């Protein structure tokens, strides 16, 4: 049986969506039969591989590294899914958007102790002027809202993806938050 080449990625987010993914519990075993996990924060892979069937992307696009990875994912995946509210809406990371990047860095780093990264150096990637949802940067094929999406939602979406069907969630499974 052909196994789907499956990936999950983590951009600007708290990893809560990945935690929720692990809440699939025993379903993870079913899933393991049907997919090959080719890239994920929970797997030690450095490069995003070629020819991926489905990638779930957690987190918003907050900096240039996020942007680069998002573009790689898009170029190498057949289906890209915005996984959780940060990827779908920008969510909590985007709360910084009403501040300018300079003000933000000053408030977070410069006014505190320690080194003063400016972004774009070896300490920290350059921040984008605004945190963006994934679909404003690359084309996204399906949206899985929730903060985090609970295991039930994730399973509903993943089952559809495994079956090669479009992801259509029930209203109570597609609320933000």
């Amino acid at each position, binding site marked *: 049986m052909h196994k789907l080449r499956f990936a999950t990625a983590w951009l600007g987010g708290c990893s809560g969506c990945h935690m929720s993914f692990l809440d699939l519990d025993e379903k993870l075993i079913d899933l393991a039969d049907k997919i090959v996990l080719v890239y994920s924060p929970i797997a030690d892979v450095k490069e995003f591989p070629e020819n991926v069937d489905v990638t779930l992307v957690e987190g918003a696009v907050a900096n*240039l590294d996020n*942007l*680069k990875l998002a*573009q790689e994912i898009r170029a190498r995946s057949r289906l890209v899914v915005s996984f959780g509210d940060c990827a779908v809406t920008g969510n909590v990371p985007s709360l910084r958007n009403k501040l300018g990047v300079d003000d933000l860095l000053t408030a977070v780093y410069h006014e505190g102790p320690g080194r003063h990264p400016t972004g774009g150096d070896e300490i920290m990637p350059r921040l*984008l002027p605004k945190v*963006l949802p994934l679909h*404003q*940067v*690359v084309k996204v094929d399906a949206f899985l809202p929730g903060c985090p999406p609970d295991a039930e939602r994730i399973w509903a979406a993943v089952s559809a993806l495994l079956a090669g069907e479009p992801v259509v969630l029930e209203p109570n499974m597609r609320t933000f938050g």
Partner: protein
Amino acid sequence: MNRADLEAMAQREQQRQQAFGCRILCCASTPCLSSGGQAVYDAINAVISEGGWEAEVQAVATGCMGPCSHGPMVTVQRPGEEDVVYERVTSDVARALVAAHAGKAAAVAPVEHVMPASAPFFAKQQKVVLANSGLIDPEKLEDYVARGGYRALAYALREMTPEEVCKEIIASGLRGRGGAGFPTGLKWDMVRKEHSDKKYVVANGDEGDPGAYMDRSLMESDPHRILEGMAIAGYAVGADQGFLYVRGEYPVAAKRLERAIRAAERRGLLGSRVLESGFNFRIDVRIGAGAFVCGEETALMASIMGHRGQPVPRPPYPAQSGLWGKPTLINNVETYGSIAPIVENGAAWFAEIGTAKSKGTKIFALAGKVATTGLIEVPMGISLREIVYDIGGGIPDGLAFKAAQTGGPSGGCIPAAHLDTPVDYESLKALGSIMGSGGMIIMDEHSCMVDVAKFFMEFCMDESCGKCVPCRVGTVQMHRILERITDGSATPQDLATLQELCMMVKETSLCGLGQSAPNPVLSTIRYFAEEYTAHIADHHCPAGVCTLEKQPVGEWVTA
């Protein structure tokens, strides 16, 4: 005052004017005053008093004569002779022309400043509403009466029933000059048929389109004509109270209207028992406070009642439930300006002018990149080409005509390919623009159409009242996308989203402001799509206006 007194007043004033051998009319409207018109008027008066010619020569400060970019304008009238119009008059020119026309000195008229009556600017125009503008002192009731003023009101009150007045207006084919073009007579008849203890007549003088000043000029140049039109309307629909809503930016117009109302009331032409009939009609001026949306009739009424100028959904229409819940007739001031001539000359006369569906004349404020800018009144159905090239004198600096923008932020741009289109309600609508209130901005090759669309969208965004979501937020989002197109950060997807947004805002907004806000975008996409794609795909602004200094997000990684 009754009808005979009115006639006597007219004759007295005519005789008084004819007694002067020479009348010198100086335009004292805003454009001419800001080009030095006051100094000209002072110089003329000085020459008259120096020469001791007060008995033979009369200087009159009048309203607008039309070719504003050629101001200050002066017209010389001598009995039995054709009027002579002078342009770009300075104090020296003024002194010379007074001396020459007063015939007292051997002075030679400054002929190089004469604008011949045969000039296309004048020859192609037909003045109905503006018939008195520039020829009378707007602050003198007698001047208006001498030219037949209030005769139509007297006739209507004495010879016609309200129903007959409405029928006459219907028969004339007059349509609303505020922009939408609803048949005026039908509106009147609807209000007339409503049963109510109280009805109102409202004149919309809240001219808000940037680039339009027809209403200001009419209110400043011939205030009584509007009052007379409103009074006839009041009689026709059974109202005893009128409101004239004047834009806050037009203090001179408001002041002249107030004075005109008081003068008319003193003479019994307004107020109780108008012209000794049983008809009572009061008019009050209300000053707007700077909100474009108040040109929308329900928002305007909210503003008259002292509220935030936010529109309310129609129906009910103002004709059924308007000011304070009473039947209310609202027309543009230019519409009221057409009433007296129709009653005076008959519906058939008016219906002769114009096209099959658009009757009469329309005033336009011709502005932008044309040789002669100013105020013009033309018969409906005249071609755009005649307006631009004959009346306006073509595009200066040897540049090519690119587009004419009509209807302001609710209208659209008409490209060169349609220069021969007749200017009437239906033809303009078919081209994706509208007649609008009468702003007409001519653009040459140096105008970027995306930038123009952005300009209008910014206007609509600022002027949105905020009540309904599509207009409040949709205009902001449309403006954002246009900004991205002009700064270089747009993607092809943005153009598709922009078009979708336009359709949604157009179809779902609560009032006319939101419903028409996408028009400038839709019309420029329709005729100048290649300019949009040049910005997005080639990072190039064909007119050289946009800076395009940014890139789309996707290109930041490589940048």
